[in-house]
């Protein structure tokens, strides 16, 4: 931004430079934790701070031992397996139920639309601690506390609002006449849906599924209340790591999770581009 319009006064320019400076400081504040975690995860010492050797860029001060520890500790491996299993199952369930419901909600004839929408979005609004306490009471009656099924039900509930929002948004831009035309040409409702509607709203469904997947993968409060020792997930393992013995393995896990976030952001923005393109 070197070229200011000619009618700008000196004070204009100074204030804009100050604004830019402030904006970059805030961006630095936002990125600082991630910038710190990544190099520290390669620290050879079991500390959370930079050693002299690291500052001098001595290769001997860096190591992959915390990554090695992560991938060779059975408890972490079980945690990865649990996290992926629960997240996949709840994302699939949330996407299936949520897409069906979004199709119903987008129909003009749908009765009580606002009320039903409020119910579907409520898991996003209620604080997690309240949801967790309520689920703990209610799921205990059905022996669902400490089971995979209980956690999947819980995480599916949290993922549903995201699926509803994204699928409803892509149905808004979907031309209902295309579906009607397919029906008039003799396609059954199911065939018309899978051949016409589904391909067009697929980006919305996929990003809803991704949102639901990530929500489950990152969720810790419900896990704290509903999971037994067998259902320890990655966040649960990180939580007890942070509370009990602080160990740089957590920093290695954090770096890997951050990498996953970057991949996720890229795939979400690709999905968005696909949706806009046609």
């Amino acid at each position: 931004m070197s070229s200011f319009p000619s009618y700008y006064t000196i004070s204009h320019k100074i204030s804009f430079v100050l604004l830019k400076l402030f904006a970059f400081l805030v961006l630095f504040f936002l990125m600082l934790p991630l910038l710190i975690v990544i190099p520290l995860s390669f620290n050879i010492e079991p500390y959370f701070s930079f050693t002299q050797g690291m500052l001098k860029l001595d290769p001997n001060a860096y190591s992959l031992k915390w990554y090695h520890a992560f991938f060779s500790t059975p408890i972490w491996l079980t945690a990865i397996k649990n996290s992926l299993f629960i997240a996949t199952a709840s994302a699939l369930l949330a996407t299936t139920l949520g897409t069906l419901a979004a199709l119903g909600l987008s129909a003009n004839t749908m009765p009580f639309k606002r009320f039903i929408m409020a119910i579907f979005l409520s898991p996003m609004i209620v604080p997690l601690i309240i949801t967790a306490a309520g689920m703990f009471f209610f799921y205990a009656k059905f022996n669902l506390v400490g089971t995979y099924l209980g956690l999947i039900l819980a995480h599916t509930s949290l993922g549903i609002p995201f699926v509803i929002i994204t699928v409803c948004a892509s149905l808004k831009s979907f031309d209902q006449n295309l579906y009607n035309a397919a029906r008039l040409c003799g396609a059954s409702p199911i065939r018309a849906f899978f051949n016409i509607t589904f391909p067009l709203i697929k980006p919305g469904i996929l990003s809803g599924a991704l949102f639901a997947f990530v929500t489950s993968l990152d969720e810790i409060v419900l896990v704290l209340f509903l999971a037994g020792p067998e259902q320890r997930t990655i966040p649960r393992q990180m939580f007890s790591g942070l509370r009990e013995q602080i160990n740089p393995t957590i920093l290695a896990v954090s770096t890997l999770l951050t990498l996953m976030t970057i991949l996720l952001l890229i795939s979400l923005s690709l999905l968005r581009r696909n949706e806009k393109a046609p």
Partner: protein
Amino acid sequence: MKRSTLSSDEKAAARAELRHHQWLAFSLVLPLLCFLLFSFIAPISTLLLRSVYHPNVQQLIPHTIALLNEWDGHDLPNNNLMIQMAIELKKLAKQREAGELAQEINRNLAGSASQIKITARQLRQIDDAILMHKGQTYLQDAHPAWRDKAIWFAIKKAGQVFTDQYYLTALDLEKNAQGKIQSRQDINLYIALFLKTLKMAFIVTGLTLILGYPLAYYLASAPARTANVLFIFVLLPFWTSILVRTTAWIALLQTNGVINASLLWLDIIKQPLPLLYNQFSTIIVMTHILLPLMILPLYAVMKSIDPCYVRAAGSLGAKPVRIFLTVYFPMTLSGLSAGILLVFILFIGYFITPALVGGTDGQLISNIIAFHMQKSNNWALASALGALLLLFIIVLYWLFDRLTDPNKLKLV
């Protein structure tokens, strides 16, 4: 005379067709509705019920409670009632459930837990037939406090199946002997915690506003290419796991963490500063976590403001400060209110970060709910506190709904 264009048969057919379509749409929604009813709505309802329905004590000593409900409270309970208490307490001692009763009664009368446990231990060995006869003597010999009316009031109160006492406790209130509601003299715990949560919510909302508004303005006014690149630095932390971000801040703020080490190295401080496990760390980390949620709605609104307005005001002679206050700022109000409410709502219900970095000083209302769920096992009180929090959040959310358009947010 004007003739209707549809015959009555046609009207009926159209109505039937509409009803058919309504059913079709509804049947698509139905599976999810049933699912959420079981997995989410019923649990929340259970929590609300639990805050007023507390049958534990009534189930432990049903006969004693039945007799106590008829007791007028003027004199000590009669022998019949004391015998019943002795018998039921002995039964609990045999089943190893006396501790549970002691815990429940102790909430109404501090110190009564040991009285109940000691008595239960002594009654265990005694035959039922003897207790039938002179249970009252054994009761009073085991512990003199059974001759005091206070314990009987406490048991009677704990035995009520439907009760408002947990809401009163959650608001630091209690009922006196005449049944009038008054504030508790001894402690001012939960109101203070609610107020502390609100105070910190205001601070964090203020900080995100001060940091977020200029940044959003800069991003909205920068050229599209620059803005898109810089926006990644807002979205990346936003999408990063909460636990990763909290871990990173622990690494930064620890006594021997990055910030303290740098300050020591620069000779700015001589001793490491206590940056972690207090209110300060809760505020900093929560500001970091919630800041993107302030920036996103502000950016969305600022992006949609036509720069012509600002230029027009300038060419009409307004000074920059006046342009900002009278032209630009009012147009950002909808994004501003959305951001403020979003940050505020999320903060007051937040649990995980204060639990990890807050120490004892930085705990919020949701942490005390977790404490009563997991440590003190006072589930009814946890439910009452949760219900109050939920009510507050629903009111705020209703405001949020009136003030904002959720479709405008750029999340990716």
